[in-house]
């Protein structure tokens, strides 16, 4: 049953990164969009993510609950040593969720919209940034459960080049996912050109940020590059991801929405799989080398078993209705009218 829980944990993180990431990316795109085009973009975003955005956000909660029920030492170690970035990420989550709804449910469309938009776009940036920072810090090897100094215990684990590089990479991924996703939604010719341009920009940005992660790992002595080169599964997966990006670049303008979206999802899945495989079973790499893994941290026995059953039974309910929701709002007519 432990494996069931591990798979759900991986899946919920993956889905959060892909679906939530596209969602954050939409906000990030707004920052990089000229004012004249921003309204169009906003409408497109709203029409496409409106119905499902609330569901996206749930994957994070599922992941958190799995962590604290199934792997409490991991949850508490992260909470204690990464308290500061976690709190900052929470601020981003609050700002984003509320601003998104406020700007659509305010009964009047006036000056307040500027305030909501400001909060929405910047928190769309902050949230994945700190999420990435937390990912980076968890595996960066700077967490030291024995540390007593404030800086060593609560700052150093995340305040380093490697974590920041992962953070930037995460932001890039979000922008990448959103821009590729929107390419499919844009029907008008000139809109499409703008969106394709954006998508290419974000592809470049993602590739550069990926390079930055590897460079930072070398500077910060995080044993990543050397190890990856000797692990053929990780290596092959990363190579496939790179090829998929290249293919995506070529196919972007051709109007094959499904292929393009599939490729972008594939890229992100492959990257997460590669790193997941690389670090498995560890989730937190500590300074002393006594890492916290999904095996040594698991609440083996009834807690894990009941958790697994709860997840399995839950998905019986959730998956069909989620698919039906996505299906019902596919090819939304209004979307075509607006864009």
């Amino acid at each position, binding site marked *: 049953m432990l494996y069931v829980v591990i798979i759900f944990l991986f899946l919920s993180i993956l889905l959060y990164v892909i679906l939530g990431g596209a969602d954050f990316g939409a906000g990030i795109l707004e920052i990089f969009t000229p004012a004249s085009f921003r309204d169009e973009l906003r409408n497109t975003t709203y029409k496409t993510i*409106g*119905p*499902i955005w*609330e*569901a996206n*956000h*749930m994957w*994070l*909660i*599922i992941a*958190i*609950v*799995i962590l*604290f*029920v*199934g792997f*409490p*030492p991991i*949850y*508490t170690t*992260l*909470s*204690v040593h990464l*308290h500061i970035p*976690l*709190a900052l990420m*929470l*601020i981003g*989550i*609050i700002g984003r*969720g*509320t601003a*998104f*709804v*406020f700007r659509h*449910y*305010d*009964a*009047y469309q006036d000056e307040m919209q500027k305030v909501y938009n400001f909060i929405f776009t910047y928190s769309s940036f902050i949230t994945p940034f700190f999420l990435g920072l937390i990912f980076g810090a968890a595996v960066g090897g700077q967490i030291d459960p024995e540390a007593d100094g*404030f800086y060593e*215990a*609560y700052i150093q684990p995340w305040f380093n080049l490697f974590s920041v590089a992962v953070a930037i990479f995460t932001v890039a991924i979000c922008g990448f996912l959103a821009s590729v996703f929107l390419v499919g939604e844009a029907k008008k010719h000139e809109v499409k050109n703008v969106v394709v341009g954006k998508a290419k920009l974000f592809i470049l940005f993602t590739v550069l940020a990926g390079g930055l992660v590897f460079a930072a790992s070398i500077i910060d002595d995080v044993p990543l590059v050397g190890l990856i080169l000797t692990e053929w599964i990780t290596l092959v997966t990363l190579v496939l991801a790179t090829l998929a990006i290249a293919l995506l670049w070529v196919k972007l303008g051709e109007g094959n929405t499904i292929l393009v979206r599939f490729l972008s999802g594939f890229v992100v899945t492959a990257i997460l799989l590669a790193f997941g495989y690389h670090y498995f079973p560890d989730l937190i790499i500590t300074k002393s080398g006594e890492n916290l893994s999904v095996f040594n941290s698991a*609440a083996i*026995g*009834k*807690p*894990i078993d*009941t*958790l697994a059953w*709860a*997840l399995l*039974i*839950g998905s019986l*309910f*959730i998956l069909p*209705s*989620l698919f039906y*929701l996505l299906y*019902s*709002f596919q090819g939304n007519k209004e979307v075509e009218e607006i864009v």
Partner: protein
Amino acid sequence: MEDLFAARSQMALSLGFHIIFACIGMVMPFFMATSHFKYLKTGNSLYKDLTKAWSKGVAIFFVTGAVSGTMLSFELGLLWPEFMLHAGPIFGMPFSLEGTAFFIEAIALGFFLYGWGKFKPWFHWFTGVVVGVSGLASGILVVAANGWMNSPSGFDYVDGKFLNIDPIAAMFNDAWFTQALHMTLAAFTATGFAVAGIHAYMILKGQNQEFHRKAFTIALVFGAVAALLQPISGDISAKDIAVRQPAKLAAMEAHFETSKSAPLIIGGIPDEEAKEVNYAIEIPGALSFLAHGDFDAEVIGLDQFPEEHHPPVAVVHYAFQIMVGLGMMLVGLSLLYFISLWKKKNWQVQRWFLWLFVVATPLGFIALEAGWTVTEVGRQPWIIYEIMLTKDAVTPIPGIKYSFFIFTAIYVSLAAIVSFLLYRQIKAVPASLKENSNVSIDY
């Protein structure tokens, strides 16, 4: 500000905030569904407008509830890591099921909000009901988790270790049913009176009389029925606590010394040093009766517990008085309303009658917050009753007060924005209903 105190304040603030949105998020869908039902039955478009107007409110509250809930699931670890390290696997069951309930709720809300004109009317209506039912289920599940903190079960505690964990037994702890029942009723009472109060105010302002009257009736019928049941359920809770957590009951009643035929103390100022209550009204034997159903029964007082395990008596006692006092006022208003329905139809158009309900708008929520203060502060100094002390659970990171200040600022601004939005939603209603606005009732 001491770190422990800052952490407790931040937790209390976050929960106190979340609970308001959570309650509205779980109760409003039922109002919506009722109005929607009436629309489908009668075809009166006012009911459709009302459903839509309410559903916008629900969306705003749902999101605020969801983000504040997300914060809570992080805050449990950010503030109480030692607690979560041990409690997570034990009381996690309700949280993992709650995930499903939330998910269904979110999906159903997606269907409902964006589904006008897309689905068959009754399917669309049904998705609205699903929002309410799953919201209610999630509320009940979290309260079961809280019940476990009051009445820990489902494990053996040996030498500081939690062994033989059984998450299902932990979920069905001794407190879950009484708390869930009382909490559900409280959510309906508080939301019902709050919504009714707002619409009563709009009727008084003379806008869209018919529209607001329909809204007022739906909300108040739910609220008033729940308010009438509330004291019964509260009494069940009190009897339960007398057995489960006598220290909490003693603090609620400011009952310092164990005694037979104990008096019920109403009001008064507890003096924790001198262990007495000044200026109170005492009803002889009534506490024994309320707690054990017998005027002569013995009621355990705080003297049975070591001083360092006493909860803060004054806070718990005041909070309890506020809850019960307001509860009784709401019972009175509910009776008044039912009398007006059956005997005195003309009251309903009187200004004094409507003003009473306007004044009552916040009372249910004040009672609800007071009730949680009773439950949570009354459990102190324990975070897990008689197993783990709150001070042993708090995070080691220093400077929690800064986090508390920042989050206070955020909650205050969120509350301000939500009130502002709601104000604008309500103000905007007349604009969308121009064609109906010639209907009016004379005073």
